[in-house]
């Protein structure tokens, strides 16, 4: 018995890899491989799309439109993130359980708020968007709330983990000096957690921009909406122009957050 478990210990990585490969092969059987996989004329479309990649439409009119749409996407993402940060700090602090006095109430607030945060992030932002559009109509708020809820859930959970991971010695020093729970939070936990929190928020901000692009699918404006319109017109040259604007936006934010994260570590 011991021998078997020992040999399992050695080979468990190989077994896991094999299992994953088997799962992938199993998934391949779901597709009916054959010529009917591709549209008639699909190959020609592919060639056309690929060719127009090198000839994006760059008239001033399109660029103007793209700039406004990019800004709209960015502003929805920023607005959604502001709400998400507020939600995340409130729920994250409660989910970390540092405010609770007794062991029992600590467990309770941890359990309840971690559960809420888990539910918020389990559902994709586009589904939230659709549910909001169905209930409050086509306003930018639908996009903003739809971004704020899942991102609040993700950020809140990470904030709670960061707060729980701060070194305990300074907190104990404050506590023995007679600080209250609230003072412990503001002078102990939050200042120590701040740089990690900012760097994770920046990372998520980049994701939020991408999500905000996708919001257009349920009818909310932005660069995604322009891409969709151009695609429906079969105007691939325009599609790539908008795509390039989106890529530039994402890359710029990526650069910003990379530099900021490096400075915060120093």
């Amino acid at each position, binding site marked *: 018995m011991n021998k078997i478990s020992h040999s399992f210990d050695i080979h*468990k*990585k190989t*077994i*896991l890899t094999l*299992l*994953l490969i088997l*799962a*992938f092969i*199993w*998934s*391949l059987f*779901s*597709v009916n491989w054959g010529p*009917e*996989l*591709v*549209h008639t004329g*699909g*190959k020609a*479309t592919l060639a056309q*799309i690929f060719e127009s990649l090198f000839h994006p439409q760059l008239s001033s009119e399109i660029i103007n439109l793209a700039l406004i749409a990019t*800004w*709209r996407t*960015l*502003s*929805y993402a*920023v*607005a959604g993130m*502001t709400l998400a940060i507020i939600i995340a700090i409130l729920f994250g602090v409660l989910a970390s359980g540092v405010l609770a006095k007794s062991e029992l109430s600590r467990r309770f607030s941890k359990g309840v708020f971690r559960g809420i945060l888990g539910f918020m992030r*389990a*559902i*994709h932002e*586009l*589904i939230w968007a*659709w*549910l909001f559009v*169905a*209930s409050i*109509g086509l*306003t930018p*708020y639908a996009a903003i709330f739809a971004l704020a809820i899942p991102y609040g859930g993700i950020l809140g959970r990470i904030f709670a983990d960061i707060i729980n991971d701060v070194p305990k010695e300074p907190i104990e020093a404050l506590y023995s000096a007679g600080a209250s729970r609230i003072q412990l939070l503001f002078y102990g936990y939050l200042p120590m957690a701040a740089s990690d929190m900012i760097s994770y928020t920046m990372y998520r901000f980049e994701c939020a921009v*991408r*999500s905000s*692009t*996708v919001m257009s*699918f349920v009818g909310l*404006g932005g660069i*995604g909406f322009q*891409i*969709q319109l151009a*695609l429906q017109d079969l105007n691939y040259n325009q599609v790539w122009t908008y795509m390039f604007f*989106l*890529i530039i936006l*994402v*890359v710029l934010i990526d650069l*910003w957050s990379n*530099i*900021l994260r490096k*400075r*915060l570590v120093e």
Partner: protein
Amino acid sequence: MKKKILLPKLKYKFNFVNFSILIAIVLIIASWMFIYKVDKADFGGLFTEKNAFYAKKFLKGMFGIGEETPAFKDAESWKNVLKLTYETLQMSVMAAGFASIGMLLTVIPAARNVAEGKLTLSKKWYNWILFGFIRVIYIFSRSVPELVWAMIIIFIFKPGIFPGALALAIHNFGIIGKLCAEVIEDTDLRPIRNLASCGASSGQILIYGVMPAVMPKFLTYILYRWEVIIRTTIVVGFVGAGGLGMDFKLAMSYFKYSEVTLILICYLFLVALADIVSEGARKLSS
């Protein structure tokens, strides 16, 4: 004689962190102003009677109130949705598989220390070109959301599981490639120097030195991405790429809100399952 006191000169130093916070505040104010002024989003207008009516109707529909047989009590629709759930699972596994294959084929030249020739101890002139080229492809595929990829791919392939998996794979290929290239950049160089001093060729160094060191981390990242992919499978279905998402869209368009609830239940179940499986597998691999 009076002694002169030397005061340290106050020098303005550019502080990137403070500068970033300033930009962030400006961005936040500008965005909210834009939404409020240009898009004329009226916050008070959210709480009109009309909205309350629709929200109530929607919520009632979701809980199946006033419907004879809500979809979540109907065996036939359960069967249908469970079959779609199974398909969605297959789609996510396929997407993760394609992304991993693409990553494994390209990741080695995409690491900076390979391009510099530190890792394989062989300098080639084309390494830097290959490095730049693959990194640009990573950025390109990563910056475009999976739904937009799906919108384009649906022009080429017929609706079904495959185009959805492909769209998810393209987007995740960029992310997983970047993460795994960073893993290679962080590998310990000592075992590799040891191999090299024993006379191993660059291919042998790759197989016996680099691969064993990075594979566990690769597996962790692949599993983590698979978890994310499961969450997004429903989204690529919206544009006709099969799975739960397509049914969700149809149910929404036909105002069959109780079916929406059923689909969401299955979806949440799938997400929870993915969490448990990937957690277990990660424990096994570490």
